[in-house]
């Protein structure tokens, strides 16, 4: 378990790729610099495309939490 407190949570469970990444991008778009968005996704594709996009966009992927049936990604907006 992480103790990171997100400013916003996007629940994209049930959505197929690239839905979760697009939901994350939408939340980061409206976030302020330094804020943390938590993405909940049960799509395996998120394990690769979220880190790839975070690096490309210069945002920091602070943690990936593996939960029972989904993952939680914590991304801080640069």
């Amino acid at each position, binding site marked *: 378990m992480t103790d990171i407190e997100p400013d916003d949570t996007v629940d994209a469970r*049930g*959505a*197929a*790729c*690239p*839905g979760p*990444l*697009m939901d994350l*991008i939408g939340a*980061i*778009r409206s976030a302020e610099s330094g804020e943390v968005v938590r993405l909940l996704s049960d799509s395996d594709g998120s394990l690769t*495309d979220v880190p*790839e*996009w975070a690096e*490309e*966009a*210069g945002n920091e992927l602070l943690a990936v939490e593996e939960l029972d049936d989904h993952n939680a990604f914590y991304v801080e907006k640069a």
Partner: protein
Amino acid sequence: MTERIVIVGGGTGGSVLANDLADRLGPELDAGDVEVTLINDGPDHVYKPVWLYVPFGKREPADGRRALDELVDDAVDLRIDRVSEIDTDSQTLRFDGTAPSMEYDRLVLATGSTLEPEQIPGLVEGGHDYYSESGATDLREELLAFTEGEIVLSVIGTPHMCPAAPLEFVFMIDDWFRERGLREDVEVTYTYPIQRVHGNPHIAEWARPIMEERDIAVETFFNAESVDPDAETITSMEGTELDYDLLVSIPPHGGVDLIEEAGLGDDGWVDVDKHTLEAEAADNVYALGDTADTGVPNAGSVAHYQAGVVGQRLASEIRGRPATATYDGKTLCFIETGMDSASFVEFDYENPPSPAPPSEKLHWSKLAYNEAYWLTARGLL
């Protein structure tokens, strides 16, 4: 007691469903046991796929418009009004102005997508589109005057209507300038928000080599943040800046506000069971087409197939039988690969697409279907 079925939205999904119910529930409608009302905010049905051809001078916006009262069965009550509020507790719709409210027993939301270019600073002033009648005709004037320079096609909003249309546009524009002997003087760049050129990995894998062959530059992980209409640049959240002489965008999309206000889902999309298309947050409410948040493409074929499912389910419910019809994700799409060739895909929740080799025959099949569409809208095809 009369069962009141109300459909909001007279696009592909709403019109096909209204005609489907008129046919399926004919005896009940004749007997007055059921009423079907179709509400639309204007008198016309609009077939949006026509707009792709307008910038190239191949079609006119009027080719995509027909009066709803000519398309919809006379057994359906057609009401031209704008719904301002959905109250799912009292099962009541309220309207703009002084129009009286309306109660429903079963509601189907088919309100579709709207464009929200104002989400991106500078896009309204600097960008063009072919996702609206006025956008398509304005773009036609720009293209006819364009003989050299950089064209950027930027996919900004996802989900957006017709996911294949951005690929089609760059394939067509490449061919259009090539045939006119101008392609060497025109650079074409395609941008997409994720790491590939299309949301569906199978279609992306198919399209990318064609783009390379055709000298269409690609920028992936490009999420437009702002447009500077004076400097003619578009900048992404990822920090990439592109110069353009002509910017064509797929603007951000949203659903209608009243869906979120009714607590049925975010951004105007209704949270539904992706098989039954029943709303998750309210009883006796269905959604279909773009309005239903199923994760499948926002395409006319989807709305068409979903209308058949909802029609069967409503008829079963009215007759007191278990509703067994379900939507399997079926999507069908022609993809133009030039001015006289096209591919074709068909897929569902379980089976991915496998694009057919492009051919002139498929191109003519697409054009033929665009004419035959008016039979679909009438519920005949």
